């Protein structure tokens, strides 16, 4: 009789521990999301746009905007050697 009461108490305690653990995990991840959202100028999601999934471009994946980001590498210029095909100007 007393053994089954102890077993029942143990089961309730184990259940309470599981609930507490799950709650703690939930609170932790909620705090992470909240921190990302409230950081000034924040952009929480880091994924690539799905709309232009047919377009694989290069400039988004680095922490530093101007760093080399993939095998496309940095820009390179050299002295002109022929008649220009296009012009650059403020637009």
């Amino acid at each position, binding site marked *: 009789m007393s053994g089954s009461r102890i077993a029942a108490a143990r089961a309730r305690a184990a259940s309470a521990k599981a609930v507490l653990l799950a709650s703690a995990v939930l609170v932790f991840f909620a705090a992470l999301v909240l921190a990302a959202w409230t950081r000034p100028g924040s952009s929480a999601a*880091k994924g690539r746009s799905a709309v232009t999934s*047919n377009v694989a471009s*290069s400039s*988004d994946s680095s922490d530093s905007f101007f760093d080399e980001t993939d095998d496309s590498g940095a*820009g390179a210029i050299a002295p002109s050697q022929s008649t220009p*095909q296009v012009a*650059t*100007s*403020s637009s």
Partner: protein
Amino acid sequence: MSSHHFPAMGCQVAVGGATSNEAARIEELFHERDRMFSRFRADSELSRVNRAPGELARVSSEFEAMARRALRAAASTGGLVDPTLGEAVEAAGYDRDFDELADHPEPALTGPPGRWRSLRLGHGLLSRPQGLRIDLNGVVKGRTVDDALCLIGGDGYVSAGGDLATRGTLDVELPGGGAVRVVHGGLATSGSARRRWQRAGLWQHHLIDPRRGRPSESPWLEVTVSAGTCLQADVAAKAAFLLGLGGPAWLDARGLPGRFLFREGRTLTNLAWRRSIPRGEAAA
């Protein structure tokens, strides 16, 4: 090399080396981005977001990605290239398609300074102070040029009003004379030479100084920058223009070649540019 031309985003787009199918996809990409990000189309997503009441607006994944790029551009330029200057550029008078813009007798107003740090973005939602108007044009065109180049299978280039990206070498005429060969990546020019108008007899232009909420009084007329992508070059050129005399050193600190055209026609190049062009000046 075959070339294809069409108007989009208020400028002429030139595409070289694309098949007719690729050129058609590129043209559609530009129009799609224009439909989404134009300040002057009431049905664009940007206009819908700017009209949304309250502080929260739901945004598409593509809009969110572009806004995220704009925030990264702002962070990387110390807030010089700021996506929250929609109200300031309108206060300066740029409140309609540039082709429809006429000189106006009323003086330009000063808008609020940049507030990019007030934006929150994530999970399909954009939060901003009520009434803040976003303008993503600091990144949309450059990114679209880069994306368009990816639609070309072989060597080729895409140039939107002179902001360009190339795969394969491309000789490019520079502002104020001379030319340069782009061996790889992007080249962009920002300045006050073209997109300008008058208010009460005073020239205004579209490059707003986010610290003051009105057009920059930079000593430069145009700044040209080479970088790995057109987006990087365009953002760097805008920042270097807005930094004024600090622009050349700012670009050197990032290893980016830059060429600066003074208002009176003189040119100046930074160390990174001179390392790439040994004679110190582009070929005439």
